[in-house]
């Protein structure tokens, strides 16, 4: 009979163990609950990295497994962040407004409170009324539902139009870029209702929580690790079954899958929407750690970075995506944070803040050309897993007309 899911996919267990160990070590070394070797800001960086790993898993599902190079998944990531940011900002502002109005002699009416919140939040864009999209922002439960529903719905509608008209390949990639660009440009407007280019800020302060950021940062690290673990497990389960077979088939030969009787468009739409929801959840965990979200976060380049991470890490294997996202984004933080030492060449000094993108671009090209399996391919070297042994190769001239078997004897 069939072996169990874990037995067939040992990498899942190894991954989860590594993730748990990582979380434990960071906790022990943190300022909040441990010996204080790792600063709180670095804990936040690590927590954010876990969220980026989760969105990379989503990207790998849609690109590495289904073969759809979506260059718009950061739009869903950002939307998820906006959705949770709305509640965080509303609730925290409400607490402040209630606090300040409680000093007055006459108790404030609820409409006065709401006006006060509106003034605080939208004063920066010259308005004070709540736009319609903030209708649920006073309820954490509803706003949490919106984290999944809004990006999911956008993906569903976009995907329905795109896949139904059989847009594929590079045209689809351009279309997704256009989507994320259009969304970013829309959000940049002051009357978009999400504070234009100011974005939402102060998200690191959880309303009603008095614990210090040292502790809050760890809560988010744990939540991010849990989300990554669950997301990874779910993704691994999905691709291990027949659905995995079908989407791999769509990647390799879409027409053939169609003639087997599978509705390719439906499957693409399902995977696209599902990965959009994962990306949104990752975003909702990321931005409270970042503290601020603005429309620049969903600029087209962000989604391209995501593709670069997955390509460098190794497409078509989930841990490859995680390794790529973690490695490249942490390295990027190091290089662009001014921590990497400059290289004086005498006539010119290489400043990594300027040159990091060049290095990243070069390594992307090199990986694509010479190591298409990416960093995940190193695991194959360790486990000595070989690529399919394709027989029927040309024999050398000395072997004459012998068949392969005869020649090797």
């Amino acid at each position, binding site marked *: 009979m069939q072996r169990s899911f874990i037995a067939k996919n040992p990498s899942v267990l190894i991954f989860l163990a590594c993730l748990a160990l990582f979380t434990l070590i960071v906790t022990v070394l943190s300022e909040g609950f441990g010996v204080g070797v790792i600063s709180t800001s670095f804990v936040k960086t690590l927590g954010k990295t876990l969220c980026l790993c989760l969105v990379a898993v989503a990207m790998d599902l849609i690109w590495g497994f289904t073969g759809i190079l979506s260059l718009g998944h950061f739009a869903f990531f950002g939307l998820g962040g906006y959705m949770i940011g709305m509640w965080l900002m509303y609730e925290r502002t409400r607490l402040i407004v209630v606090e300040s109005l409680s000093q007055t002699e006459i108790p404030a009416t609820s409409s006065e409170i709401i006006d006060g919140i509106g003034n605080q939040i939208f004063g920066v864009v010259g308005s004070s009324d709540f736009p319609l999209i903030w209708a649920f922002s006073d309820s954490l439960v509803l706003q949490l539902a919106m984290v999944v529903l809004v990006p999911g719905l956008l993906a569903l509608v976009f995907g329905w139009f795109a896949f139904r008209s059989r847009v594929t390949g590079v045209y689809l990639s351009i279309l997704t870029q256009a989507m994320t660009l259009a969304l970013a440009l829309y959000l940049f407007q002051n009357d978009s209702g999400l504070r234009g280019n100011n974005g939402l800020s102060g998200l690191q302060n959880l309303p009603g929580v008095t614990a210090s950021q040292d502790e809050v940062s760890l809560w988010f690290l744990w939540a991010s690790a849990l989300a990554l673990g669950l997301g990874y497990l779910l993704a691994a389960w999905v691709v291990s079954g*027949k*659905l995995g*077979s079908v989407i791999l*088939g769509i990647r*390799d030969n879409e027409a053939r899958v169609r003639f*087997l*009787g*599978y*509705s390719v468009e439906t499957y693409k739409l399902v995977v696209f929407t599902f990965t959009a929801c994962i990306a949104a959840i990752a975003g909702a965990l990321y931005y409270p750690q970042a503290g601020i979200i603005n429309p620049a976060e969903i600029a087209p380049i962000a989604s391209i970075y995501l593709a670069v991470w997955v390509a460098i890490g190794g497409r078509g294997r989930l841990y490859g995506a995680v390794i790529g996202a973690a490695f490249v984004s942490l390295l990027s933080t190091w290089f662009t944070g001014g921590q990497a030492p400059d290289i004086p060449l005498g006539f010119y000094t290489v400043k990594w803040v300027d040159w990091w993108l060049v290095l990243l671009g070069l390594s992307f090209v090199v990986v694509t050309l010479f190591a298409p399996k990416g960093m995940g391919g190193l695991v194959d070297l360790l486990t000595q897993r070989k690529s399919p042994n394709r*027989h029927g190769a040309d024999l050398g001239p000395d072997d004459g007309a012998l068949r392969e078997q005869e020649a090797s004897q």
Partner: protein
Amino acid sequence: MNTLLEVSGVSVTFDGFRAINNLSFQIGDAELRAVIGPNGAGKTTFMDIVTGKTRPDEGRVIWGDKSQSLLKMNEAKIAQAGIGRKFQKPTVFEDQTVQENLLMALKKPRGWLSVLMYRANTADLEKTAALAQEIGLLEELSRKSGELSHGQKQWLEIGMLLAQEPRLLLVDEPAAGMTPQEREHTTDLLLEAAKTRAVVVVEHDMEFVRRLNCKVTVLHEGSVLAEGSLDHVTSNQNVIDVYLGR
């Protein structure tokens, strides 16, 4: 014999070129048919029309006992209705094992939710093993299909077709690139399949068609030039002029 598929008066134009010109074609319930014709005669386009890949400009394609029109259905729906297709080039999913290829083709619900929840049970595994036995790939079940030889891939694709349990099989050049022994096995597979369902074989190789020993339809410039036994059509002067004579 009941008519399973009826194509009548179908025409297709690509950028002014008439690929199919007023083509009519019928096949019964359990019939083996060979379709031959020179390059550009419209053999592959004919298959494209039946499987829904190409929409004809005019004409009718009627399918099955309920006389459904296939023209309003998409590829997946047509495949679910019971038409299986094998391509000229062997197209199996090379990154997956022979077993995964066969499991994917097995006749099962095709909706995404049931596919997501699907886990192979013993009966399905036995079914794939039996199919693999039939196509001579029992030993290779757990190998990646990309490792198979050309002929084995062709058989795997035929096996996937059989797993779909279609009522009509459209097979495009099944013997291309095969050794004589492999061809014989392929002939046997097709003859066996044609006992229970309709099979249409598009083929260039006359020897192969002769072994199939069935009714032959000759296509030329998008319409039927002659139809009948192989001896009948090969003695037809028109056929000799456009095809065999060259």
